[in-house]
């Protein structure tokens, strides 16, 4: 089971090492981890996808909370959160047919083509991880040259969207 938690932290040197080190030390599995600044100077937000049962999730939240650099930990349940990931996919354009097919798929999926040469195209996929996964699957037949995924970021919906913990 995947869980998404968002962590507000003091933007101090080494904070990522502390958080990720704690995860590995305690045997928690991180699926994705992203970090970015917030509107408040000196405070960053880390979004982590963890794999584990409810008990693991509870321990993760408590252990993260215990780190002094942590200001707040929030679980973002799937049903009440907006979850997004960005993926850049570079696909080979081996034939005219392949090119047409790829452009068609991109249109259906409403995916931006951000670079196009005679031999390859780079597409920018933004969406829930499942959408990213399925588009990647679709592109495999054409020969994916390289992909780059950001990992998940998320935010609670509305005012009651996020369950505040601890």
């Amino acid at each position: 089971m995947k869980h998404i938690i968002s962590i507000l932290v003091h933007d101090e040197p080494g904070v990522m090492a502390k958080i990720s080190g704690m995860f590995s030390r305690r045997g928690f599995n991180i699926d994705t981890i992203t970090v970015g600044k917030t509107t408040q100077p000196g405070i960053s937000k880390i979004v982590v996808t963890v794999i584990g049962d409810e008990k693991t999730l509870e321990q993760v939240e408590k252990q993260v909370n215990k780190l002094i650099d942590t200001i707040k930990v929030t679980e973002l349940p799937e049903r009440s959160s907006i979850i997004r990931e960005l993926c850049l996919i570079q696909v080979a354009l081996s034939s005219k047919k392949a090119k047409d097919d790829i452009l068609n798929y991109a249109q259906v999926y409403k995916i931006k083509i951000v670079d196009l040469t005679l031999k390859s195209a780079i597409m920018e996929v933004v969406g829930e991880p499942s959408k990213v996964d399925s588009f990647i699957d679709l592109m495999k037949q054409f020969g994916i040259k390289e992909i780059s995924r950001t990992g998940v970021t998320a935010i609670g919906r509305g005012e009651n969207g996020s369950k505040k913990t601890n």
Partner: protein
Amino acid sequence: MRGSEIFVQTLIKQKVDSLFGITGGVIIPFFDTLYDNMDKIRYILTRHEQGAAHAAEGYAKALGKVGVCVGTSGPGACNLVTGIADAYMDSVPILAIGGQVSTNLIGNDAFQETDMMGITNPITKHNYQIRETNKIPETIMKAMKIAIEGRPGPVYIDLPKDIQLGEFTGIIPTKVEIPGFNPTIYPNPRQLQKAVELILKAENPVLISGGGVIISNAYKKLFKFAEILACPVMTTTMGKGGFPETHPLSIGVMGMHGQEAANWAVINSDLLITIGCRFSDRVTGDTKTFAEKAKVIHIDIDPAEIGKNVGVDVPIVGDAGIVIDQLITLLAKEATKLKNKHSAWVARAKKILADAHALEERDIQKEGLTQKFVCKELSKLLSPDDIVTTGVGQHQMFGEHFIDFTKPRKWITSGGAGTMGFGLPAAMGAKVALPDVEVYDLDGDGSFQMTSQELATIKEHKIKVIPIICNNGCLGMVRQWLELFSKKRYSGVQYSGNPDFGKLAEAYGLKGITVTRKSEYVDALKQAKKSDETTVLDVKVAAEENIYPMLPPASSLKEIIGGKVIFNQTWDDVLKKRAK
């Protein structure tokens, strides 16, 4: 003002009066400032930084105040690591200061550069690398606050050389705020109510007092609470002394080498009222079968400990003392109801305790110079205020089993980390903290030799302690495990090259007494006590003595072996039962 100056001044303002450590390359500016402040801070030059860290722990545990240690960059700071890790496991508030190469050299593999931030990340409550001289006071104040508030723990400060030499032009804050660091000390009233309901319903409750009770200075409150509950009271290894072991409700220490009565009570209890204990594997054994009949009320200041190792019915996050106080208030009107409710249950547990003691006493009389005897006689001689520190191994568990304490902060041991070599430097630190108290270091020949160079420190600073070395010429605890679980294949446990510890003490200008007969021991102890000088007792105890009862590793409490009353079974018996 120079960085090192503001650093030392802030330490003094934070009421640091003692400092253990060793100087070296990049920490010289700090020591240069210290030179002018030796009247305010007692500096104790240890012979190894590990000794400094354990001394800081001994100081902290004896006083309930932050202990401070210091080393230079690279190997100096690395040598502090064992002590820092030990403090982390046992929630000991220490401030460890490590020098660091100048900021412009960090990351370049400069001479004596080690990434101490990386190394201390997993073994500290928090760590700081000071990168601006102006941040020195604020950082120290935060570090001291973090070390002692909530669940205490070690904080490491990495102090680059140029920061010590830089000019301080900032303002000294009067207090510091750490957003997000607000330990929960007041419990949730709803949970308290649930706890009270369980307590009133329980037929066979037990009170388990952990290290958290001592840390919270809740000794008197716990005493009152226990008398209201009027149920059997036990402690963990770290909680020993949190409840007087001579009290009619006390059934001793639980866990791996605990009293049969205590472990029997846990197995048969229907309610564990657990305060400030993290249910370590040395306490529970196999968690699946731990206290199967019991509901669990778990009181701890660290929410992450609740539900981590064992399932909990009523979680209460809060400071032990405050929670106990509130429970006392809620239970006050029930006190008469509870007064005699559990007396039969208490009597059964107490009878097991007494029967086991009688049989153990018989062994002590019958056997020669054993560790049991050493500990039992020491127990008789101790004044309530005397402190006993320990190394790690058989002697430590014999101490746990055979020495009674009636006050907290008197049993100072390395529990979670099990750090051999803890005893002597910790004794030194405790004596510096409380110079008027007699401090014994109950040690083993293995543990003692890991930090015995601190005898020089002890001589130099006239710190009188009494090391009692249970010298069995081997790593006794491992030898016991090998005897029981590895068909006596004694791999890597023999110490055939031990020095004459008495002469070793003399070489340091101290006194030494070798004890080879039972009849000599008490007299030697008394001599050591009377002397103003540290006297090392080299007690040649039996080589093949085992500490029983014993919970075999990863086994269920029911499978405790070597008991005399309830757990009167061998490891073979246990294996046979399992095979069925």
